[in-house]
């Protein structure tokens, strides 16, 4: 059962990240390839606090969420100045900068060696060590985030964000502020990613820069493209599907030496196929 639970836990954590990425990329149209960096900051902050014993799990998670809100707002700022491809390059730069920091700032992150021994999450002083207990925690967090995402999409705020994605000038001409809406969306996306990071660190008990690199960011993007932009169902379906894919691929007769390249190949082919034939993803709307 633990195996199935741990798949669920990871899939739920990635669902949080999928929601975060979908909000930013799918809904507002800020093409960020640095969401894994925010995810990482959340993970390291929670890890640092729990290892030092200065905060317990929930307050640490709150601090991480807060920090990621600030961070995501900060790194989304260039999108207010530069559009489209320019922002993509900036975003790539931010991701590489983050990876360099995770790898080299040994005092804060354990550097390339990673940060081992992060204590399990606790509620009111009671540590949650069983996989089932952690599953309960991640499930609650994911449900709350899904609810928030759904509420936002159906509220006028969601409509505003979707309109911003299509045409910022027209939004301004309709008398609405673009800046504050974009910043709010980036903040929310940051909070989701920060919480996901905290859950990830406490569940795995070990984190290192490899989980928060450019590949991870692109995986998140793939999840949104495959699941579908701007819908709750798409944000959930993408992560669950893509995390199951490697497990499914093991049943196909590929020599193990080729399995990783085959998997990456499948991801690439999926991106092309979806761009060409189904830009709305499986359960979403047109990108």
């Amino acid at each position, binding site marked *: 059962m633990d195996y199935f639970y*741990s798949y669920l836990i990871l899939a739920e954590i990635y669902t949080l990240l999928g929601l975060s990425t979908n909000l930013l990329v799918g809904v507002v149209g800020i093409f960020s390839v640095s969401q894994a960096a925010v995810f990482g900051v959340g993970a390291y902050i929670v890890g640092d606090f729990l290892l030092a014993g200065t905060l317990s799990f929930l307050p640490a998670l709150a601090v991480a969420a807060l920090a990621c809100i600030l961070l995501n707002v900060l790194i989304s700022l260039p999108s207010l100045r530069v559009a489209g491809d320019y922002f993509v390059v900036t975003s790539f730069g931010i991701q590489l900068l983050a990876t360099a920091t995770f790898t080299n700032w040994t005092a804060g992150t354990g550097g390339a060696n990673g940060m081992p021994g992060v204590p399990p999450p606790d509620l009111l002083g009671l540590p949650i060590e069983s*996989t089932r207990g952690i599953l309960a925690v991640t499930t609650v967090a994911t449900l709350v985030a899904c609810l928030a995402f759904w509420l936002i999409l159906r509220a006028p705020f969601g409509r505003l964000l979707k309109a911003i994605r299509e045409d910022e000038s027209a939004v301004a001409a309709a008398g609405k502020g673009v800046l504050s809406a974009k910043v709010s969306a980036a903040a929310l996306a940051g909070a989701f990613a920060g919480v996901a990071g905290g859950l990830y660190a406490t569940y*795995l008990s070990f984190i290192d820069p*490899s989980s928060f690199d450019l590949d991870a960011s692109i995986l998140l993007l793939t999840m949104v493209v495959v699941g579908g932009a701007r819908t709750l169902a798409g944000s959930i379906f993408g992560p669950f599907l893509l995390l199951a894919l490697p497990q499914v691929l093991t049943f196909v007769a590929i*020599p*193990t030496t080729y399995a*990783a390249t085959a998997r990456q190949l499948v991801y690439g082919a999926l991106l092309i196929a979806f761009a060409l034939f189904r830009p709305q993803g499986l359960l979403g709307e047109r990108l």
Partner: protein
Amino acid sequence: MSSRARSLLAALAVSAALGISAPRPARAADAAPITFGAILPLTGPGAVIGTEQMKGIQFALKQQNAKGGIDGHPIRVVFEDDQAKPDQAVLAFNKLVGLQHLPMIYTAYSGPSLAMAPLTARKHVLMLNAGAQSDKLAHASPYLFNTLPTTADEVGVMVKYLRAHGKSTSVVLYENDAAGIGGRDDFVREFKAAGGKILAQEPTQFGQTDYRPALLKLAAAKAQVLFVVTTAGQKSMADQLHQMNQTWLVAGTTFMEDPPTIADPNAKGIIHTQVVANASPELMAAFKKEMGAEMGFFSRQYYNATQIMFALTEHLLKEHKAITGENLRAAIFQIKTFHGLVPMTFTTNTAVVPVAINEMTGGSEKTIATGTAH
């Protein structure tokens, strides 16, 4: 899957054969296969090493099962891929331990091993590491055992050699990742402790093979020794070192054991530590015939680790104890010294093993000194 299916078939075939030709009346319970797990990077950038490790285990299993397994029990190993990533490793661990209740698991990389270490303690599962050398692995979990010396221990042998040969100043080129930084820290600490002086250090990125800027900067420090900890791209480095025409002694770690580099005339004079795990020519030949590849360093390491696993299993069967992680762990300290490819003694969770220092001769290499890492 196919290779797993193949090993499964092999195991079935072996047990079938045993059933027919077993010389003594096989008791059904006796002949039940004993299964262990292995979580290795079978895909991704670590796959080259991971598949080499897998072959070492598979070869040892084939040999042993052809001899009738252990005490009539065929031995099986279920392989899982973790892509050298901690989260995938935990997923695989839960699959093997949660679903299949395996008592012992092989592991290979520092990150994944450290991620699984707390779980091994919680679930009482023995974990054998014959590939990673991070210093943190030494005390990560009472259930994690390392058959390779930690980097610190290995580097210690090199430092002793350098100081004994009058080298007192050094610069360090390291790969900017777990393996490289660990090696750098150990070298700097040990070299200083031995009275040497570190004049400069420069990083390179994994996979970034233009070392010229870093090497030029290091050369400006005019040290007697260039200590190198990188896991890939050694041949390019040897060529670029040759271009620079420096007089320093280039010293490296086990990672330098790279056939294209050894074959490169430009690599002449480079020395490096080498964990001793020599296999007899007959064994090497048998391996090549069976597995279709050379028996590389990591194949030898995991072959050796599998010999340890056989010894532990045999010990428990003889004492009529259940094959559980706890019992396997206790057995390690009871047996203490193992005789696989090399003699290996466990007084702590990390084995004491011999380490050699090899020198490249521009085409091949020779051992110029030996020591012990502990």
